[in-house]
């Protein structure tokens, strides 16, 4: 069965430090990849997506992610985090060759310490 894994349920980081949130999925065949952010008491907001083309994708708020087909990963990075980045981050994948629905990972809670 297709699956999405976010290994880190919580990531504490000091302000202005770099961060990487990890995401792996079960198959590299024909995937679309997404990262969403959920701020407290809000819905989900699309950070970035990969459909095709360059494997390095830049999103909003200074985030970027890299598609690695051989490792079936789509890790999210930011070189310097801010307090306002405190939120829950969800990786999501769909397999367009099978017209599958989007599957969300379990989420990573990013907490920024001053």
């Amino acid at each position, binding site marked *: 069965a297709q699956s999405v894994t976010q290994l880190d349920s919580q990531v504490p980081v000091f302000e202005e430090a770099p961060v990487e949130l990890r995401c792996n999925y079960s198959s590299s065949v024909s995937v679309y990849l997404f990262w969403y952010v959920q701020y407290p008491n*809000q819905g*989900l907001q*699309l950070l970035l997506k990969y459909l095709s083309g360059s494997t390095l994708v830049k999103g909003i708020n200074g985030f970027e992610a890299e598609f690695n087909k051989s490792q079936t990963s789509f890790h999210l990075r930011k070189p310097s985090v801010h307090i306002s980045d405190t939120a829950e981050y969800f990786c999501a994948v769909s397999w367009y060759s099978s*017209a*599958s629905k989007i599957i969300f990972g379990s989420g990573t809670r990013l907490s920024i310490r001053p």
Partner: protein
Amino acid sequence: SAVISQKPSRDICQRGTSLTIQCQVDSQVTMMFWYRQQPGQSLTLIATANQGSEATYESGFVIDKFPISRPNLTFSTLTVSNMSPEDSSIYLCSVGQREWDEQYFGPGTRLTVT
């Protein structure tokens, strides 16, 4: 992108009652989705609602418990019927053009059943 609103934003309901959640979009959209997000967990798709056809429910969700209406291309409702404390969750609606592509989310409805 699309702007999505949900009503109510939160509610506290008694066991055995029903609650209808409304989802309004500022533009016409093909597909609308309803998700459940239980405390501290990821999103679980309840059903997909296309205008003019019956909603398609995911495994573990049934129409009698979660009836959905989609009367036009900008509006949908989800009813949570005969509620129990286990139904306490955040309910999110989202919209998209295709099942496997990016989705835009409403702010969610936080439901507490006592």
